[in-house]
């Protein structure tokens, strides 16, 4: 029976997809973003028998048992992390069971796991929130430590094609890269696919970030300017989170 390493879960969340949702944070991430808000979720545990006591090692049924008290009050679940798709087989099993219970399934991903071969997963999925952290390889390496630009772009196109793209998100972390350029390019890329795709600009906030040296919280004015930029570059559905 397969088990997943899970960091924690939130019973009710209004900010992880439509309606009220239970969010499960999977342990382990393939990136190392300088502004990561959950750095404790990054470390990957290959040997699942040696995980720290603060984490959970659960089967799908055990996880469901722990969150089923929430089911009457939620639209569905969202898997997040870390990068949840590193534990893809588990998520497929989880989604097939939650789907049967009448819940919707959402994925919150950093976009770097190729989805082209994942028909079974996508058939069980109702929506995906995907990060687009920078628009070119150099900046992507600067922000995340690796270059997965092409995979991210392919994933966005694919998700839009199959009607599962819930939103594309860019964190604005001042001082890190040139966000003028990045917003222009990301917005252009999105608008070319479909101007109605929801583009969420999230202002970086200091709290909870360990390695925050040199990263600056963008001002409201900055964020509003980026929103305008995105609009002039063709996006029609822009949301800013301050």
């Amino acid at each position: 029976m397969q088990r997943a390493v899970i960091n924690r879960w939130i019973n009710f969340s209004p900010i992880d997809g439509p309606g009220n949702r239970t969010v499960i944070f999977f342990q382990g991430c393939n990136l190392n973003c300088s502004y990561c808000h959950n750095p404790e979720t990054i470390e990957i545990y290959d040997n699942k028998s040696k995980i720290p006591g603060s984490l959970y090692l659960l089967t799908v049924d055990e996880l469901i048992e722990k969150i089923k008290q929430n089911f009457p009050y939620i639209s569905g679940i969202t898997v997040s992390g870390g990068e949840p798709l590193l534990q893809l087989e588990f998520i497929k099993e989880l989604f097939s069971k939650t789907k049967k219970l009448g819940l919707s399934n959402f994925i919150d991903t950093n976009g770097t796991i190729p989805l082209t071969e994942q028909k079974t997963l996508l058939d069980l999925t109702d929506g995906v929130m995907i990060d687009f952290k920078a628009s070119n390889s150099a900046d992507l390496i600067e922000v995340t430590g690796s270059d997965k630009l092409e995979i991210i772009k392919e994933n966005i196109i694919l998700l839009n094609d199959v009607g599962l793209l819930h939103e594309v998100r860019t964190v604005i972390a001042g001082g890190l890269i040139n966000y003028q350029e990045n917003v222009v390019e990301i917005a252009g890329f999105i608008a070319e696919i479909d101007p109605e795709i929801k583009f969420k600009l999230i202002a970086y906030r200091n709290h909870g970030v360990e390695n925050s040296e040199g990263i600056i919280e963008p001002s409201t004015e900055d964020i509003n300017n980026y929103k305008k930029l995105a609009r002039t570059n063709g996006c029609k559905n822009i949301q800013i989170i301050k």
Partner: protein
Amino acid sequence: MEEALNIIKDGTLTQQQKIIALARQAENQLELPGLTDKEQDYLNSDLVCDLAEGQAPYRPRYNLVDFAKFMEEGSEFLRLSSPETLAEATNNLIILYQNIPSVTGMPVYIGELDKLLEPYIDSSSDPKSTIRLFLTAIDRTLPDSFVHADIGPEKTRAGELILEAEKELANSVPNLTLKYDPELTDKDFAIQAVETGLEVSKPYFANHRDYQKIFGDEYAIVSCYNALPIGGGSHTLVRMNLKAVVEKALEEEEFLAVRLRDVSKTMLSIMDKRIAFLCEESPFFKSNFLVKEGLLDKNKYTAMFGVYGMAEAVNLFLDGDSESGSYGKTAESQKMAKNILDIIQNELNEHENEHSPFNDGHYLLHAQSGIGEDVDTSPGCRIPYGEEPSMPEQLNFISPIHQYFPAGVSDIFTFDKTYKRNPEAILDVIKGAFEKGLRLFSFYNSESDLVRITGYLVKRSEIEKLNQGETVHKDTVVLGRDTLESSPEENRKVR
């Protein structure tokens, strides 16, 4: 007489508040006839409390005027005919409100406002501003947060305008409830109500389908969150302190069930005597124009049997400590609460009152919300502030308990401002809770100036004023301040 002088000299009371307090003072020079020594003892102890209704009841405590009939037929006594325009309709209502008796001197129910006003919306050139004026007049002329209006379940133009206006005005009066049924209430209207709630802490959501089973369509949520039949109401509300009952049983080393039955019977008898005075000695049901004109009907009256302090009662009994314990956290504590309520309900089933024909003479259980002076007891069956488990656990625990209270019960939930981005999330919670049997869901945003005290709204800013010795317009601000000070309302968990 000293008390009267104190009222007169009190610089924080308005003129109207003084008059009401002085009248109460005078009434209490009398003594309710026929009380036995035991009944008197219980009233003097912590066990039973008549909530300062007065010693000589001369009007029912809660009156739910049949406003629909008033709109159709007008009133001979008030020399008003059926209105033809929105301005006339709102004007007639404002006049009628001044003539509805209650314990506070102000009506606890002012109508299903959307249904009452909807027929006049189309012919009005500016319905929004008329509704704004109407709601402002209510807030200023009826300065009491127990004044309660209802809307829903169906979406109407009037209902939407009322919500819009309430959100803009941010008044604490009236209290407002949306009768909600996911099948009857349009989603966009429900969402608008949630958005309004996140700004101004109202409306409440009432489980319409569930209340309909008890009352049919003719019911309203009134006062704090009491559910009662329209066209009638409740003669009286007396309440039992469950914590005190457990204390007494432990002290006397007797079975809790025995003491519960004893206090229930005594309280029922006290209620009977209050109602006997009201219906036999006071001429209300013979002389009041509302009765004579059929706007109130004696046959639609019941009485409310209130209980409170359940959490402390259960904690004391199971864990030996009333202040903190397993209530709200374990299945055992839920079972114990149900047992207590079953015993009381049994007493109500066996008791009939000739003057309260509604529900075949059986009084209705009510989870009483507490008053300012209460210390160390939680409202109704609520989990003590700060002791709540996670929201889903709380809902799973409390929803089945709501089922015991036809005449009103509520729980309050606090949401942080991120929910403003996604009001649908709160609707998900409400829908789930109603399916589980929750009867009344109230909520507010943790940053709102309007705070929900046990069952009504006050403004934080007004409490501040009162604390600085200024007079404030609303009587409930004083109550709210006292409640805030004696129960750590601010501890309520934010989600």
